[in-house]
Structures are given as structure tokens and as C-alpha cells.
């Protein structure tokens, strides 16, 4: 981590708005939910501004008051800047956004920039930016100065005395970045050469390279590359604040001569960084209505709707239906008890709905509330300050004793870790802690300690472990559980199985055999990560793969990226969010090399362990009352798969299926091949009481079979209802599954085999003709992979089998086979000469292959 001080920075952006910046360019948009690639035309200026906006968003996100920025534009129609007002000259340069801490208004203002009809001199812009910045920082010499210049290099540059400007930048210790639109780049990671580059631009690019040479701290790059960099995840550096406390051992009050009391400073060592929360918005409705959007008509006749930020209000509601409600509360839908309906009916039926609403939501004003604790059915009034008197405690960390570090149970560690140093202002105290740390290290012990944050606050238990850094010795603290915090659940022994005769079993399907254990051992060895990362210096694989220091929180950075994105675009449908930065997904899959290395061991495990996904057999309806009970037990469904709930569970799967299929192939008839008696029976099962609710209840995640439709279009929805257990390819989207499997893992044989099986199954199933085109694509892809990854044998075997199934089985699919014949070599057997080209082998000659297709 760089030692640069966070904040205390003025960042100037110098943006070229000359006429040439209005030139259009085509950029590729990330695929939309249907996987459609699309492009969009924007101006170079818009592209450059996107970079500036992302940079400024970063500043807004970190929310440091001392991170300021300003925007200077050159090539503007008018002139307005401090150098001009003092000395004249410096035309077409405008101080567009004065230096300030940025906010969303800054972004909005940038959006208004349009290319001008004139040209401006970038060096003028640079000088104005330097002056404006210097003015601002006159009395703050320690602040960091940054200037970023964005230009397309099509301007005429006054080449006089540019060395003086460069010297000035160095003298002021400005860190300069020159970012050019379509500048050439020989960066090995981003090579770029602009075709048909104009002479002016060629000259200017050369000039900027010379310029950057002359400035102490400067670099130059092309905008495309910079856009990649700017979306790279960065961690917000936080230095933990030190808090003072004392470390005690013994009785400091009455036996002070012996007791130890040391002044220490503590600070956080780990602290979970959470993404900022999104603000909530809603479409503003016409006053007094609930469903009519408020619309304003613009001057040009377009219509505007308004999104208003929402605030929350907490209502206190008296629960009329007793505590039954509490179980339902989670999804906000209260059951309507029959009793109440009666009441309402008796009142007269007109406004039944509203009556109920009123009954249900009897709001209580906050002033009328009492505070108290529940004690079973009783109410225990709460003392006025919200809690009972606290147990008196004394601030500090008390050591209770030491124990063998080998006895430390890592899994009990409960929370964030803290550093404990000797007082940073007192060498004596540092020395004292150091002696303890050294002694504990030598003796290999940890300390049990009780931590009280301030007088009379609740005590925590934990352990202190010694740690020696390069230049300082200190302790680390981690909180450990109290007796109350530990759950003791019974679990059946995994290895010690007792038969009903009371004998210990040596063989049982639950117990792995020696052979299986051996297979697992091989797998574990093959998947070892200790030497899986290439050492950049030696080029050998001898470094550990994965380090916490380099693992960015995917959720945090993805949310951040999404927040930036929605703040800079006006419509998400036409400007979808870019995919996550590759760095975020860096550790999402085992390293390729390891996968390859473990391929055989994994295959062996798959064959030996024979794990099968259990397809739940729906229980036939028992008695009516049970079915009814099942409906009430939505919550149970989430966690324990009780037999009594499996009906609802399966039913909702069915529902999802029904909802998905039509969108895919018109009438959903594809599923017919799948449907057996069980499924038909399910259709008649009572539907779940509640409509399918996309709101995530925690437990819903439990069962992969009840995933909601909204999830199914996500990139990695790994659950395909049409995927058989043990297979990596499903019938719903075989091509995609196949590509994904091949890309993410190296288990080609499995992928090719499964693909073959799936294709064969689809071909002979009813309505296969609808998918002919898709299947042909599958065949092509499968053949390509088989050829490249030496699964030639598998392909040839599959193809022979397919031919046989198409022509000789009933009903077969002769039409499809003629389609395959039409594909020619692309759909034929792989011949020996073809295989040789790819380093493989085949026993099929050209003649045989030809014969096979006819």
C-alpha cells in the first residue's frame, strides 16, 4: 500500500471540448440480459467525460471533504479564466467547475458539456489549471496536486516555451496525466494503433510524449486503457484510530507493588467494509393518487416523469390478531383470519377491504407507547433509560492467565481482530509490552483476557496472541464466545456408526471405503494451492495461490461500480452496466493449471463416490388436513425438508418451470418429454397459498430447486431444472452450459460426453425439430472442442451412436440425420488426417468418414 496521504488533494481535470471532440465513435455495450451484443455511438467528448465522471464519482464515494476537484475546458466558444482576467490571452479556456468538494451536481454539470465549433490550445488549458490550482493551495503547500488532461490531439499547439510550463509543473510537484483519445499504445496489455492517423495528431502525440518526459511526475496513456484502469477495484485506505486503554495483571488496587498496569493503544486490525447503501427512489405519483404517475411535458413535447427520493417513516401498529401474525410478518402479508371477516360482515359488507385494513393497521402514536421487556406472556416495564442498571466494570484489558497456543481453537474466534501496542508515546511501555510479547512467543502461549471498553460497559472475553512485526512487537486480540454464545447441537458421528444390535459398523454406504479414501487423497494432493501461482521472477509455479491481501470484496466493488454507473447514465436499459472487473472474479475458480492437474483425480473420485442428486419424490397427498397444514408451513419449507411440505415445494418448482418454458420455446411443450405421472399429479396439487414472492426470505435460498425466475437470467445460474444429476450440461441451454464448462473447468471429457448424451436425448424426444438449428450449433461446438482437446474418440463414438439412434430406433429422427449429413465434414467423423493436425489421433480414414455420412 502506498504511503500517500488519503485526501488533501486537489485534482484538476483539463478537458478538450474542441470541435474535433464531437467526432462520433462506436463503443460496445455489455450484453443485455438476453445476451444480445449491441453498440452505441457517442462522441469522443462523451467518452472522455465518462472517464472524468468515473474519477469524480470515486471522490464522491469516498466522501472526503479534503478531496477536491475542478474542471477546466479548452476549445470553448468563450473565455473565462483567472489568467485571462489578469493578463489577457489564454482564449477559449473556461474555468468550468471551480475547485470544490465534488457532489452529484458536479456530475450533472459535466453532462451538459457539448463540443464547440472552435479549437483551443491544450497547453493554455494546462497553464490555467496549474494557476487555478496554485491559487487555491496558496496556503496549503502540503496538499497533493494532480492534473489530468484529456485531448484528442487534433489541436494546434503553441510550441513556444513549453519547457517552462513543464518546469513549473515539476516545481509545484504536480502529478500530471495526459490521456489521449485514440493515442497509440505499445503497452503489452493494451496495444493500440490508430489507423489513418492525421499528421497533426501524429505530431501532437510526439509532442505530448516529449512533454511528459520533461515533467518529474507525469505519464501518458490512451483513453481506452485508462477506462479499463479506472474501473479497477481500489481499496479505500483507512488507518485505524488509536484508542488508549490499560492492560492489567493482578490486583492493582491493593497490591500495586506487584500488580502490572501498562498503558496500551488499541486499533482495529480487521473491519468488515460494507458497500454503501443505495438510496431508495420511487416514481412520483399525482398528488392524492396511488397509481397515476405525475407527468410533465417538456418544451420539445417529450414527457418527463419524476423519480423522488424516498424517506422512511416508522409506524407502530397494534397487532390485533395475536402473535400468530409474527410468523407471517416477514413477507408483509397478514393472513385474514375468518373471525375478523365475520366481524366485518356483521358491520355491513360495503367496505370490507378498508375495514380490514383499518383493523389490521391500527396505528399507535409514538407518545402512547410504553417501553418494556417481554417475559413470556408478561410485560416488564423498562427503566426510563432503556435498560437495567449495568454491571459495574472497570475500563481496561485484564489478563486471566495464559494457555498453550496449540490448544487455541481457531473456529471459536468470533469477530474482528484488534492490535494492542504499548503506548506509542512511551518507550518504557513499549519495552514492557515487547518483553511480554517475546516471552509469550518463546513459550508459545496465548493469554485469556477480559476487555472492557469503558467504565461500566459490557465485558467481552477473548484471547491475546503475541506477534512480532519488523520493527515492533505487539499483541493481537480476538473475541471469544461466552458460555451463552456456544450452541451444542447433536450430530450423528460420521465415522462411528452403531447398528441396532449395538455393534460398530465397519462397512456402510455412509462410510468411505479405503479405495474411496485413496481417491480423495489423490484429489486433495492434486488440488493443492501451495505451489500454484507463477513466480513472476523465476517463472516457476512455486507461490501460494490466493492471498487475502489481494482478494477484493466482489459485492462491495460491484455495488460501487453499479452506483457509479447509475449516477452517470440516464437510462439503464440503453446503457447497461459493464460486467464486473476481472480482478473481482480472479479467485472465483481454481487456477487453470490446478484444474488440469487434478482432472484425472477428480474423474476417479466421480466414479468411485457415485454421488447422485436426490430427486425428491412428491408425497402423495395424505389426509386433507395435512395438506392444509403444509400450506401453513411455508417457513418450514425453507429449512427442513419435511415430507409434509414437499408438495408446496415441488409445486413451486413446477410453477417456475411453467413460467420459464413458454418464453423459451413458445408453448412449453418441450417439457412433455420430462413430465411423468408425478409431475402431472403435481399440477393438481393445491397451489401455494401465497403468490410466488420474489422477495428473498432467507431460507428460500436453501433449496436450489425453488429458485425464482428473476434469478434464472443471471449469468451463472447453475441450476437448470432440465439438468440431470451428475451432469454438467442441461437440456434447456446445452450450448451455453457446454461453453461455460469448457471455459471454466478443464474437464473436457465430461463436457463432451454429457453434451453427446444431451444431444441424443433431445434429438429423439418429441418436437426436436424446433431445436434443429440450436442442435447443429451444439454439434459444431462439440466437435471443435473434441478435436482441439483430444476427445476425438469420444466424438466419433457419439456420432456413430447418434446415427444409429436417428435411423434405427423408434421413433428416431431421420430428418435430423439428414440435417447432419448436410453439414458435411463439420458434422462428420473426425478423420486421422484431421486429427493429426491437432496433435491427436483417429482410426477413421477419409473414405470411411465419407461413407458414414452417405
Amino acid at each position, binding site marked *: 500500500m502506498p504511503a500517500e496521504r488519503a485526501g488533501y488533494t486537489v485534482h484538476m481535470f483539463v478537458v478538450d471540448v474542441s470541435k474535433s471532440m464531437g467526432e462520433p465513435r462506436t463503443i460496445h455495450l455489455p450484453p443485455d440480459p438476453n445476451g444480445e451484443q449491441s453498440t452505441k455511438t457517442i462522441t469522443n467528448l462523451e467518452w472522455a467525460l465518462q472517464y472524468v465522471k468515473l474519477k469524480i464519482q470515486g471522490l464522491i464515494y469516498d466522501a472526503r471533504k479534503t478531496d477536491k476537484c475542478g474542471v477546466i475546458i479548452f476549445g470553448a466558444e468563450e473565455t473565462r479564466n483567472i489568467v485571462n482576467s489578469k493578463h489577457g490571452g489564454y482564449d477559449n479556456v473556461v474555468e468550468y467547475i471551480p475547485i470544490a468538494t465534488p457532489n452529484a451536481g458536479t456530475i*450533472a454539470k459535466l453532462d451538459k458539456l457539448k463540443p464547440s465549433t472552435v479549437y483551443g490550445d491544450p497547453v493554455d488549458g494546462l497553464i490555467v489549471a496549474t494557476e487555478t490550482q496554485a491559487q487555491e493551495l496558496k496556503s496549503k503547500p502540503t496538499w497533493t496536486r494532480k492534473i489530468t488532461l484529456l485531448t484528442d490531439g487534433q489541436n494546434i499547439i503553441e510550441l513556444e516555451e513549453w519547457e517552462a510550463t513543464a518546469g513549473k509543473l515539476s516545481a509545484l510537484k504536480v502529478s500530471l496525466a495526459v490521456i489521449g483519445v485514440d493515442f497509440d499504445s505499445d503497452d503489452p496489455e493494451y496495444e493500440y494503433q490508430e489507423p489513418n492517423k492525421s499528421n497533426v495528431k501524429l505530431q501532437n502525440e510526439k509532442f505530448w510524449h516529449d512533454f511528459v518526459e520533461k515533467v518529474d511526475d507525469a505519464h501518458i496513456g490512451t483513453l481506452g486503457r485508462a477506462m479499463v484502469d479506472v474501473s479497477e477495484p481500489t481499496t479505500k485506505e483507512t*488507518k485505524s484510530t488509536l484508542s488508549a486503554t490499560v492492560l492489567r*495483571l*493482578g490486583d492493582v488496587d491493593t*497490591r500495586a507493588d506487584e500488580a502490572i498496569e501498562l498503558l496500551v*493503544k488499541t486499533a*482495529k486490525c480487521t473491519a468488515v*467494509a460494507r458497500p454503501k447503501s*443505495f438510496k431508495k*427512489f420511487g416514481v412520483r405519483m399525482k*398528488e392524492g393518487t396511488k397509481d397515476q404517475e405525475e407527468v410533465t411535458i417538456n418544451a420539445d413535447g417529450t414527457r418527463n416523469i419524476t423519480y423522488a427520493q424516498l424517506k422512511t*417513516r416508522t409506524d*407502530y401498529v397494534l*397487532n390485533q390478531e395475536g402473535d400468530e401474525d*409474527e410468523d407471517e410478518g416477514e413477507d408483509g402479508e397478514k393472513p385474514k383470519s375468518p373471525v375478523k371477516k365475520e366481524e366485518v360482515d356483521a358491520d355491513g359488507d360495503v367496505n370490507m377491504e378498508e375495514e380490514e385494513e383499518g383493523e389490521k393497521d391500527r396505528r399507535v402514536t409514538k407518545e402512547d407507547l410504553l417501553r*418494556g421487556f417481554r417475559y413470556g406472556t408478561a410485560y416488564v*416495564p423498562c427503566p426510563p433509560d432503556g435498560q437495567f442498571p449495568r454491571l459495574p466494570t472497570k475500563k481496561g484489558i485484564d489478563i486471566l492467565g*495464559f494457555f498453550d497456543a496449540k490448544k487455541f481453537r*481457531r473456529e471459536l*474466534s468470533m*469477530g474482528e481482530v484488534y492490535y494492542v*501496542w504499548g*503506548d506509542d508515546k512511551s*518507550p518504557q511501555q513499549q519495552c514492557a*509490552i*515487547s518483553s511480554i510479547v*517475546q516471552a509469550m512467543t518463546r*513459550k508459545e502461549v496465548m493469554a485469556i483476557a477480559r476487555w472492557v471498553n469503558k467504565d461500566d460497559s459490557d465485558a467481552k472475553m477473548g484471547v491475546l496472541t503475541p506477534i512480532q512485526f519488523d520493527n*515492533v*512487537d505487539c499483541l*493481537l486480540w480476538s473475541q471469544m464466545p461466552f458460555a451463552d454464545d456456544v450452541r451444542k447441537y*447433536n450430530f450423528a458421528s460420521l465415522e462411528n456408526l452403531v*447398528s441396532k444390535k449395538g455393534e460398530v459398523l465397519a462397512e*456402510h*454406504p*455412509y462410510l468411505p471405503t479405503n479405495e*474411496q*479414501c485413496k481417491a*480423495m487423497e489423490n484429489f*486433495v494432493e492434486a488440488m*493443492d494451492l501451495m505451489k*500454484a501461482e507463477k513466480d513472476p521472477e523465476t517463472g516457476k509455479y512455486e507461490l501460494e495461490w*490466493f492471498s*487475502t491481501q489481494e482478494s477484493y*470484496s*466482489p459485492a462491495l466493488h460491484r455495488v460501487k461500480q*453499479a452506483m457509479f454507473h447509475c449516477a452517470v447514465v440516464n437510462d*439503464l436499459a*440503453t446503457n447497461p452496466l459493464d460486467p464486473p472487473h476481472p480482478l473481482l472474479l480472479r479467485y472465483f475458480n481454481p487456477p487453470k493449471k490446478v484444474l488440469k492437474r487434478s482432472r484425472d483425480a*477428480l474423474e476417479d473420485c466421480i466414479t468411485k463416490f457415485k454421488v447422485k*442428486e*436426490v430427486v425428491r419424490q412428491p408425497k402423495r397427498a395424505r389426509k386433507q388436513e*395435512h395438506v392444509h397444514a403444509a400450506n401453513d*408451513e411455508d417457513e418450514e419449507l425453507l429449512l427442513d*425438508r419435511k415430507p409434509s411440505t414437499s408438495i408446496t415445494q415441488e409445486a413451486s418448482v413446477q410453477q417456475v418451470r411453467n413460467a420459464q418454458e413458454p418464453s423459451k420455446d413458445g408453448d412449453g411443450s418441450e417439457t412433455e418429454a420430462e413430465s411423468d405421472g408425478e409431475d402431472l399429479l403435481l399440477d393438481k396439487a393445491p397451489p401455494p397459498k401465497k403468490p410466488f414472492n*420474489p422477495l428473498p426470505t*432467507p431460507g428460500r435460498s436453501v433449496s*436450489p430447486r425453488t429458485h425464482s425466475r428473476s434469478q434464472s437470467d443471471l449469468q451463472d445460474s*447453475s441450476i437448470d431444472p432440465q439438468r440431470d444429476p451428475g451432469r454438467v450440461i442441461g437440456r434447456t441451454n446445452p450450448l451455453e452450459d457446454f461453453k461455460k464448462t469448457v471455459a471454466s*473447468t478443464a474437464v473436457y471429457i465430461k463436457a463432451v460426453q454429457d453434451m453427446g448424451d444431451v444431444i441424443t436425448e433431445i434429438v429423439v424426444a418429441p418436437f426436436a425439430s424446433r431445436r434443429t438449428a440450436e442442435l447443429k450449433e451444439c454439434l459444431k461446438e462439440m466437435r471443435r472442442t473434441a478435436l482441439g482437446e483430444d476427445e476425438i474418440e469420444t466424438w466419433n463414438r457419439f456420432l456413430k451412436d447418434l446415427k444409429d439412434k436417428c435411423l434405427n430406433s423408434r421413433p428416431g429422427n431421420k430428418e435430423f440425420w439428414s440435417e447432419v449429413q448436410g453439414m458435411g465434414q463439420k458434422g462428420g467423423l473426425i478423420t486421422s488426417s484431421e486429427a493429426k493436425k491437432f496433435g491427436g489421433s483417429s482410426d477413421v480414414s477419409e473414405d470411411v468418414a465419407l461413407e458414414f455420412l452417405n
Partner: protein
Amino acid sequence: MAPYDDWNRVEDEDDEELQDASSFEAKKDVILFCIDCCPSMLELREDPDDEDAPKKCHLYAALDAAMQIQKKKIITGPNDSAGILLYNTTKSSENKKGQGSEIKPNLYLYQPIGPLDVAKIQDIRALLDAAKEDPEELRRMFPPLEDKRVPMGDVFTSCNWVIRDGAPKTASKRVFLISNQDQPHLTNSQQLITSARTTLTDLMQAGVTVEPFFINAEEEQFDLNKFYSHVLMQNAFAEDEDEEKDPSVLPESISIARIGDLLSQMRFHEVPKRAQFSIPFELGAGLTIGVKGYGLVTEQKKGGYKYFTDLGDRIEAVVSKTVYLDQELEGEMDRSNVFYGMSVGSQEEKTEDITGSVRPVLAGQRPFYTADEVRSFRTLGLEPGIKLLGFKDRSTLAFEDNVKHSLFIYPDELSYSGSKRTFTALLKTLIKQDKIALVLALTRRNSSPLFCALLPQEEKADDAGWMEPSGFHLITLPFADDIRAATVQEGYRAPTSLEEAAYAWITKLSLKGSGYQPDSYPNPALAYHNAQLEASAFQEEFDEEDFEDLTEPNVDMIHKRAGKLMKDWKLALLDDESSNMVSVVSAGSKRKADVSVDETEIRSRHEAGTLAKYTNEQLKAFLKSKGLSVSGKKADLLARIGDWLDDH
């Protein structure tokens, strides 16, 4: 006891990360204590641990345990219910209506199932107090059935009826069966066994689990094979009803313990075992097993207060509900129409046409995300599951790589057959090779992917008769974003002589036992709070003198063992050159006049009563050096220093 705002948390899309096991425990738990009253249960016996104690019968111990469990649950789960059913007694139910009206003969419903309640606990307490006075009291209250026994089938049927009448449908329902009879019938008839088996099946089908607590006699071991194995084996009465369908294997939870351990055995079962998630664990492409996750370590917090309203005749709890409002127009917004985005900024320039909190867009455009989109940002489109990344040495799992409590992973044979053998093979291998697994885990649909270490746990019995289960601990690793750099980079280091002196007392103070034992440290703040709550509910005085904080250090022992050595070390420290060193002023801070004051000097002035001669700066510098507060006026500072000097 969840704080009043816990519910909002479940609904609030932003805070799922914070969500913990608490929401899973919102589910109600119903326990029916079903206690045998046969003559042997009522026989007075000596306390095996304390010969001087008055003789008590097993029924006394069982009722006492039932009361203790209720007292504990009334705080941790005020919505839970309990009841007590006695069998093999001639006492008959008087009430002819409502719960228990149709139970079989020779069973007595002492307490119908109902919400936990102070009055009910007081009832049992009064009964137990009376029994303490007169050991025959229980025999009078519940006369045992002398010459015959109630068939177990009748017992199970009655349990079923009682629970059907009294327990809410959605609750988890359990029967705690307490008996010392390994042969509950006087004759060994196949018919009785069959009927017990069938009725137990019925009970289980109604969603009720039976957890037996059998009392072991000193002289004769409780023999499961006499009767219960034939009944229970068939019915797999594990808490997870989906487990152990295999009849050849003994179910996991039959407690057979001495009478003295009855309560502690029940404590293990106090909270019903509940999985937090059940997800696939992918070891590699094509090899996926099922696992369930449990929270074995979760911070138990004091319950927060709730809001109530006085309805005149009774006090009722109110619940809080959050509604979304348009900031200006105050119109309520339906939850499903809420979109998510960035704040449009608050410090808008006046000239901008975007005002504070609204964003006008062209009709048909949408600059904000839907709830689903926001969720997909958090999950990165992953489905819940654990994915193996590879294996590392056990030693790579550092002490400081921790941010939250661990979870426990156990195989789930019912979602993938073969999970158990695969899981066990993996576990054995990792233990053997001293390895951990690195995994990517998304445990719930609304959480975020995390990198975790799987730490293998071997099965181990501890002294208290508790079996540490085998499985994996899922330990969440910090991300780069969660790791803070050390604030202090340099410090003075101790010379070897001083280290030797510290080594001496550390050796004396090293505990022989087995590391940190959570059981030795009940949370004092929580206990203090609960004791006051209980006293208040029972309208008793709370006596803080009676309260013992077991987490305080045993200072007497410390001084006795190592006092002398600690003193030696302190003297050595004073002799060390570091004691005379002036602290290095950290760079960047403004230079100030030297305000440092010497402790001995300040002490002598204090004794002379001339402390006030120091400037405020000097007083503050001293306070700061002692880690004390520097706020307040000069008088406050003087008082604070005075206090400190008096204390030390």
C-alpha cells in the same frame, strides 16, 4: 428476544449482510415435558453428588429441570410454549373441556401447553418448595400407578392430542420424554411394542419430534435393547427428521445420563437444532455433495426493549412497520415500486435544475435499479453454494484472518446421496494431511460471496460428556478491503534480560487445562440483565450482592503464584534504559511548548496540595499519558488527577 426493529432488518434489502441467525430463531418452539411417574421415579434417593442433601426423587429432579428450562426460555424465546404431561399416575384430569380433555387414563396434564408464563413457573416452584419441606408431597400430588403401567402407545397418542390442541401449527414441536424405565411395560408383549411404534409414527407425521432423556441408575444400566430400540429405531427420532432414515444405524440423540446430569443434558437441547442453510458443495465439475450449515457460535445479546401500548384492560405489544414516503409529497410508496440509486446530491448549486431529491427523466427511461438487480450486484449472479478452490496448509490460516464467527458444515445425505461418504473421506484426508480447504461460499440467496477456509474438525469427547461433532468449520476470511494497516509501525524492543523476567511469571501463570473454555465464562452483563428482568417479573428484590461475575481474573491466585516475579520484572523495567527515553515526537504534529510533567513531581505536589499550580496544558498532558479523559474545566482535571493518584 429480538429487539423491536429486527423485522425491518429482514425486509430491508440493504442490510442482509448484517442479518444473522436471529431471524431463524424467530420461529416458535414448543416443548412438552412428558414425565414418567411410576413408583421408581417417586422413590426417594440420596443425591449422588452430595450425601448430606435431603433425599429427593427423580420426579423432583425432572420437574425442577423442566422449570429451569422454562425459566431460561422465557427470556431467550418469550414466544415459545411449554407444557407438562405426567404418565403412570392415578391422578386424573379434572377439566373436562379444552386441552387434554381426551387424554388416555392414568395420564395427567399438569400444565397444558401454553405460552411461557410467570404464574406457571411460580406454580412449579411452589410445588417443588413444598416437596422440599415434605418429601412425600409429590407422591400425594401425583399418586403413582402401582400395579400396572400405561402402554407407551397411549402416552404417544396423548402427547399427540395435547400438542394438537395447544401448539401453533408453525412452531417446532418437541416432546422431552423423561423416564428411568428401560422396560416401560410390566409384560413384554409384541403388541405393545407395535402400538407404541405406530403411535410414535403418527406423532412424527404430525411434525413432532421425541427427544428421550433416560435416567441411568447407578446399579443398573439403562438398557435400550429391552424396549426402546425396537420402537425408536424404526422411527428415527433425530431432530432433523430428514436424517437417519436408515434403520440399520442408531439415531443420533438419545440421552442416557445420571440423574445429576439431567438438566445439563436438557440444556444441550434447549434450542431446537436448526440449519441456517442447506446448499450444494461443489468439489469439482461433476462432483457435488449436499451440506447443511449451522451456527454453533453466535453472540447472544441482551434483548432490547419493545414497545407496548396500554389498552386499559391489558398491555399489548405493538410492532413497528416501515413505510416509504416521497420526501416532499408524503405519499406512501408501495414496496414493490421502490428503485435503488445514488443520491442525487444534497448540496446542489441553486442554478441547477435538479433540486435536492428528485430526478426527472424522460418517460420510459429508468436511471435506477430494481431490487432484483441490486441483489444480483451483491451475489454477482451466483447461486447459493460452496465451491472448492483448492487446499492449503493448515498453518496458512492466520489468527488475524478473522472478521466474524464461524459456521459448522455437516453433510446432507438427503439432497445428494453419497454426500456422507464423500464428506467423510475429505474430512479424514484433510485431518491426515493437516490441510484446510479454500472455498468460495454464498450461503444464502441474499448474501454476498465470501472466501472461506474449511477447517476440519475431528470428533472428540470432552470431560462433560459432550461430544464435539465431526465436520468442517467454515471460517470467513477477510477481503483486502477489510484489512487495516498497522497504525504503529515502530516501537522500542525489550532486551533479553527483561524478556527472561517476563517469561518467569508467564510460566507461573500458564493454565494447565485445555485452552480457552467458553463454558467457564458465562456472559456477566447478560446474566446481570436477565437476573434483574427475572426479579422484576417475579416482583422480587434484585440483590446485586448475590451476583457473581465469573469472568473476573482470580487475582489472589495470580499474586500467590507470580506476585514476586511480577515485581521483579517491574523493577527490571524501571532499570531499563527505555524508562529514561523521551518519546519521539511524531512527524507532522505541531510543536508545542514542553508540557511534560513527571509523575513523582505531580504526586508530591498533590500531597502538598499545590497541584493547581500546574497549567491546564500540563495537567492535560499528564492525564493523557495515563490514558484518562482531558475534558472539562481545570477543577475537573484536578479532581481526575487526584482520583488517579489516590488509586495508584
